[in-house]
């Protein structure tokens, strides 16, 4: 159109004017997040341009904050009534932040979405308090076993472990200094509780009932690995990044890990497979904890809130959702989308299979979960380092959890 110099200039002036007019009515939706991996950033940028093209009256503005600061920042901004329109909050924290009064109940809009009806019960429970809904999961992740195919072949093991007995046997077989059979993270952070939960829950145990037999068996199971030497004693100091490094550098034949690490393991060129978390006895179902972030709408003004909900609904389009979950290495919280992802990618399949029974962590203790998790991981560390026997460590933790849980 703008062929000649004159018409080009005219077009330019016209479009600048139009943008100017449009801008005066633009609503800005600020989204605070801690996604710092390149793939995630690209994914966010793609949603932004798609959404802004479809909704010229809304502008998306991303703000990155480090993981450790997101929660305190969200609370601080809420305290001074300057909340961003949307915060991407880690799912176990959502109900806590909602309880503090920082989030808007968006149940009226969310329950209308077809994808909401198709959302797995685990992710749903992480954002629901009674009839109130405080967010929509961006996607979920959880844990499974990554295994080194070459080491399995060398040790003459034909199939990955499916039960606890298999895992114990395989881990012992694969241990050959300096290689450990298995690796998990038991460091002094939420990571320890989170990595132990698949074993606790699959065995029918509960954080709120740590003195019961299933919990004891689950902690004994972990402790035995360390005592027999098929898991390094250093796991009490390894965060999940350290665990992945051990696996990638060939120091561990198996690791408990989530889908966010797939990209990094692939990059290393290692020949590996992924298998669901082994269950106590054949025929049982693995129950894993859910990770993943949630789009949460903060209490702001009506116009911004409406725009924020519009954005969230836009992302819920199944085709878009699949694309985003793939770039984020998430399993979609929406079943039909997750199933598709699993069919397309065998490495995601174990995670997809586990979604049906996966549980949200706040199902144990609600807003008190962080304090409960702290008590549980202290018990884990005490047992693994041999500071106290499994029984004693767990009863001490149970005592602490009792006083915590009594607080509201």
């Amino acid at each position, binding site marked *: 159109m703008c062929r000649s110099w004159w018409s080009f200039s005219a077009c330019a002036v016209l479009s600048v004017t139009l943008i100017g007019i449009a801008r005066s009515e633009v609503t800005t939706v600020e989204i605070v997040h801690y996604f710092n991996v390149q793939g995630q950033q690209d994914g966010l940028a793609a949603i932004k341009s798609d959404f802004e093209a479809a909704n010229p009256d809304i502008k998306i503005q991303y703000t990155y904050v480090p993981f450790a600061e997101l929660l305190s920042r969200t609370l601080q901004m809420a305290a001074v009534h300057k909340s961003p329109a949307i915060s991407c909050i880690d799912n176990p924290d959502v109900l806590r932040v909602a309880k503090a009064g920082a989030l808007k109940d968006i149940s009226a809009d969310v329950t209308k979405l077809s994808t909401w009806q198709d959302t797995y019960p685990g992710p749903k429970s992480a954002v629901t308090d009674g009839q109130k809904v405080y967010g929509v999961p961006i996607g979920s992740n959880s844990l499974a076993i990554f295994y080194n195919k070459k080491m399995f072949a060398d040790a003459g093991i034909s199939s990955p472990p499916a039960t606890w007995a298999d895992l114990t046997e395989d881990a012992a077989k694969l241990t050959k200094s300096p290689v450990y059979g298995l690796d998990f993270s038991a460091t002094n952070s939420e990571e320890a509780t989170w990595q132990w939960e698949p074993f606790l829950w699959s065995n029918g145990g509960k954080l709120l009932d740590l003195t019961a037999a299933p919990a004891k068996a689950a902690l004994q199971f972990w402790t035995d690995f360390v005592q027999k030497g098929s898991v390094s004693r250093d796991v009490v100091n390894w965060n999940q990044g350290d665990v992945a490094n051990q696996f990638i550098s060939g120091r561990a034949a198996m690791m408990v890990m989530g889908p966010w690490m797939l990209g990094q393991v692939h990059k290393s060129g290692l020949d590996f497979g992924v298998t669901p978390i082994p269950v106590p006895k054949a025929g049982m179902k693995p129950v894993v904890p859910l990770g993943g972030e949630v789009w949460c709408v903060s209490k702001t003004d009506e116009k911004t809130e409406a725009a924020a909900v519009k954005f969230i609904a836009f992302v819920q389009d199944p085709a878009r959702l699949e694309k985003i979950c793939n770039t984020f290495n998430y399993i979609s919280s929406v079943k039909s989308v997750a199933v598709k992802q699993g069919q397309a990618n065998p490495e995601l399949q174990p995670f997809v299979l586990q979604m049906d029974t996966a549980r949200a962590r706040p199902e144990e203790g609600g807003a008190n979960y*962080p304090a409960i998790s702290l008590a549980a991981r202290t018990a884990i560390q005490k047992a693994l380092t041999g500071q106290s026997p499994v029984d004693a460590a767990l009863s001490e933790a149970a005592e602490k959890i009792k006083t915590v849980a009594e607080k509201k």
Partner: protein
Amino acid sequence: MQTVTPIGDAKDRSGLAGPVNFRALKKRAGRSQRWFTPYSFVLPIVLFTLLFLAYPVIYSVALSFRDATIDTFVGGDMPFNGLANYQQSLSNPSFWRALLNTVLFTFFSILFQFTIGFLLALFFQNEFPLKNALIALLLVPWLAPILTAANTFKGLFNEIGPFNQIGHLFGLPNLPWLADPRLAFIAIIIANIWIGFPFNFILLYAGMRAVPLEIYEAAKLDGAAYWKQVSHITIPMLKPVTVSVLMLGTIYTVKVFDLVWIMTGGGPANSTHLLSTYAYQTGFSVFNFGQAAAIATVMVLLIVLLNLLQLALQRK
């Protein structure tokens, strides 16, 4: 025009070149400005101190008397709860463990940092080739980002890491350095000594250089042996430097956070927490801001107390 004063006028020049006449300046400033002129000079630093130093400290202390958790934080109605935060902290064995750890950590860190720093400083009083290059190298631990140092030490103390490999040469068994509560505590102290000794070294080195050589010469003439010179000249002459080195060292060490947070996270089983990491965990992992503030206040009191103690000891 006659009224315009030409540049370089004799009267003006004499005013510039002569000694500054303060009384004249004051008069020119006018009566109304007289009283606050001096204050306006200190105003920036007073504002800075109030805003960036006093406010956070006072806020933190005030927070320690309130029931501040996630639930009460957003509403802003953190109710006053007196000494409850202190009561709860003091009745928690983890707190006492962290307090004891902080004291032991500070004591052993400073003891070794100072001793190593002092001996090195003595050694470097001699002249030898490559001396300055070596001094620069010795400062590296102090300059290295703690993040890097802590992660490196985490690797060195790994069960299959270099320290255990060296241990094997001397017939030592594989030690679970960071997985055993006692060894982990020793490990973080070792790492902290490595980070802190250059600071002691360089200040003591500079202090020793400032001691007049004539005193040593006089002592030599009187037949004082080397160690006599050290104990009767160097150490007494260094006293002012020693006081500041120990004081700053104590403050730095009580405050250590990142090193421990990265190396052990306060684990295994909360056995290596210092007050700083324990306060952080209470604040940002359990979200009890009020109790975290109470712990931080105790930490500040501890620093003040240790320094008073040191001053009193030095005065003797």
